[in-house]
């Protein structure tokens, strides 16, 4: 068994082009297979995460609203005012796009979804 240089480009002649070509093919095939599997799961994962987060937001919102109501008399609450603005809840509901790279950001930060204008 022999070691070949990993991810060696065709323009880089530090290795036999035959070895480079074979290594590149194997690398691409493995990556494509793993990525295809990940993409099949990504949509489901996004939906389930969005669902869980929207539920959490709903619970927090409801509890916070109720606790704030306990502190103030009904007459003291301005009409139509909630404890949290509505867009905080709405933006947690679902990813705004199905693109792989952008949708994947959902797991790391909420920036793709935290846009109250959308």
């Amino acid at each position, binding site marked *: 068994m*022999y*070691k*070949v240089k990993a991810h060696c480009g065709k323009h880089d002649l530090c290795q036999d082009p035959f070895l480079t070509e074979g*290594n590149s093919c194997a690398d691409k095939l493995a990556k494509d*297979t793993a990525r295809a599997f990940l993409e099949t799961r990504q949509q489901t994962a996004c939906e389930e995460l969005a*669902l869980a987060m929207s539920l959490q937001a*709903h*619970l927090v919102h409801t509890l916070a609203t109720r606790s704030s109501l306990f502190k103030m008399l009904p007459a003291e609450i301005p009409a139509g005012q909630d404890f949290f603005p509505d867009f905080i809840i709405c933006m947690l509901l679902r990813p705004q796009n199905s693109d792989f790279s952008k949708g994947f950001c959902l797991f790391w930060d909420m920036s793709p979804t935290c846009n109250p204008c959308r």
Partner: protein
Amino acid sequence: MRPKRRPPHLFKSCGLYERNRPSSFFHDTTWCTGIFPEGELITQWRQEVVSRPVLPMDDFQAFVPESPIFVDGSCFHHSWAPMRSAAAAVVSKCGCSKAYLLLGLDQTSQRAEIFAVIAALWHCAGNITIYSDCANVVNIVNFLRCCGFSNRGIINLDNRDLWVLFNFMAN
């Protein structure tokens, strides 16, 4: 006897609930009780973590013997275990190629590289030349070859389950 009074639940009749609920698959129970049922993804993943990587019988010695084989493994590691994905690929000079997903709880690029070597042994008979870009796997395989592919050589190795499988295939 007075009828039992049933006050509305905390999350019933909530305007935000009506505006925000995803309509297709969210059950009323979840919103009313706060209990989140196990999703499809987790159910599927639970099945996979108890599975062992399997090589199909159709691929047994399917490649041309004495052909150089290139192997590689790839892993998309994620902190959320159901979103991890690892695959191993085998490519021969004759143009044959196969790729396999790695199932199981422990998915790393190192395991994918080892499994790729196992898959190469599965596909070819006789003496074969394997090329891998993983120095650790190459060193261990060459070490095991010196040991006559004995299981005594893998006692202190990580991923011992795969190395046992490798020794079995090599013998």
